[in-house]
């Protein structure tokens, strides 16, 4: 049997529930879309990517032109200058990896791809326009067979082991999962 205090408590509870429900409902009705930028997070992200790609095109214009002309050594020198002044820019390591690959330096190229991906996980995110996974995967079979051959010749070589480790790291990252 409820006494007077129980009844008061129930009334207070119902009152609090009604007030809370009323406030939440009013907030939902009146809240405008522009007050909730998070609801457009997909659009915001798309614009961020577009801005980043445009910035990269501007920053690395000279490097890209030199690369197109086949002047790899000069492009690398220019790239080193950019890396010196902006070591935080992960895209530089992607270009460096491409240039090193063009020069036939597959092992260093793989190392640079790893450096880039460790700095910017979007490079291995299939949903990102920055995704480079397919390009890297094309390099891996050749690099791996070359390194495995070298490993047989020099079994204790730490450089070869480290290079193979870079390949396995890239394979794991590109495979996806929850990292």
């Amino acid at each position, binding site marked *: 049997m409820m006494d007077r205090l129980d009844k008061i408590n129930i009334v207070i509870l119902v009152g609090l529930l009604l007030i809370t429900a009323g406030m939440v409902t009013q907030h939902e009705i009146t809240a405008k879309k522009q007050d909730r930028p998070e*609801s457009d997070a997909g659009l915001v992200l798309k614009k961020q990517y577009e801005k980043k790609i445009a910035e990269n095109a501007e920053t690395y214009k000279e490097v890209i032109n030199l690369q197109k002309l086949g002047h790899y050594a000069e492009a690398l020198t220019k790239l080193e200058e950019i890396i010196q002044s902006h070591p935080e820019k992960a895209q530089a390591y992607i270009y460096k990896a491409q240039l090193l690959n063009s020069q036939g330096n597959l092992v260093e190229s793989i190392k640079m791809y790893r450096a880039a991906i460790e700095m910017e996980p979007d490079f291995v995110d299939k949903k990102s326009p920055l995704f480079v996974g397919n390009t890297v995967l094309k390099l891996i079979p050749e690099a791996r067979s070359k390194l495995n051959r070298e490993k047989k010749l020099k079994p204790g070589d730490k450089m070869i082991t480290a290079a193979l480790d870079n390949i396995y790291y890239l394979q794991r990252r590109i*495979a*996806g*999962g929850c990292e």
Partner: protein
Amino acid sequence: MARILDLAVITGILLGIGSVLISYFGNPVNSGICISCFLENLAGSLQLHDELRMSYIRPELIGFILGAFLVAVKTRRFKVTGGSSPIIRFFLGFFIIVGCAVFIGCPIKMIIRLAAGDLTAVAAVLGMMFGVWLGAKHIKAGVFLDREKNLPKINGYIVPALAILLLVFIIMEPAFIKEGRTGPAALHAPVLLSLALGLIIGGFAQRSGLCITGGFRNFFLFKETTLLSGVIAFFVTALVVSFATRQFNFGLNGQPASHLSHGWTFLAMVLVGLASVIIDGCPFRQIIKAGQGDIDAGITTLGMLAGAALVISWSMRSTSAGPEFAGKIAVLCGLIFCQIVIINYRTAGKRV
């Protein structure tokens, strides 16, 4: 017994099918169902850590709790108990997630990874089995946490109510709930499919009591194979579905969300196995029990959530490059904590 056996096997089969298919429909590869990953995602979504790529409320988690709750209520198994060493359970839950983060996956994901051909999970299986065996030895030697007692029903409704609140957050998308648009957070199956899968598996897991560590523990303690049959059914089904959906990739290298530090994987899963035996259930089982009125499991779940937030914020985890330094130290701290608990409760047991 035959009926329970059937239920454990059915739950195992459902887990096997569901965990692989949910990856096919959008969840991260080899991580269709993973309690530690899901809790890390939830912690990010609640802004308990700031890694937006790991921020998403996984509807499966809500489904597990509500499925277990609904079935427990329907079958009159909703028994509200608690009060057994709450702070110890909280920290064991915390350290279980540390162990999972260093391996990169809970025991459920360990089975999924193995069934997908990921040989790096072998060290995890051996580690977890050793941890469970160690725990079982101590149970035989009289190590038990404090006895639980019956509590008023209101206590049992809080965790299911929190699950409903999370569901409301998914529907209403309030600004303080974060959802990553890149990385693992962006990889998810449709919400309704995830929720339905969670409800079904949660319901069956409540009835069967399926638990990965529990299966091995019962076998080591009593040579009892009911739950172990469910674990084996889970593995075999996941293996078949992995092949059927072309997600099977045999080998050590190129496995998603894995690393090659097998020693740390082993040690991390020793921690998970040992701590799970002390608190009576793997992370998945704790979630299910929290839904069916077990307040101790609810406290453990909160500890796991705290762990999920801090493994990201303090880098007490592994990446594809291997375990972070903080992760290694945290695993060792977890094992030290387990040892202290065991030594104390062994002494207490002798006094009684």
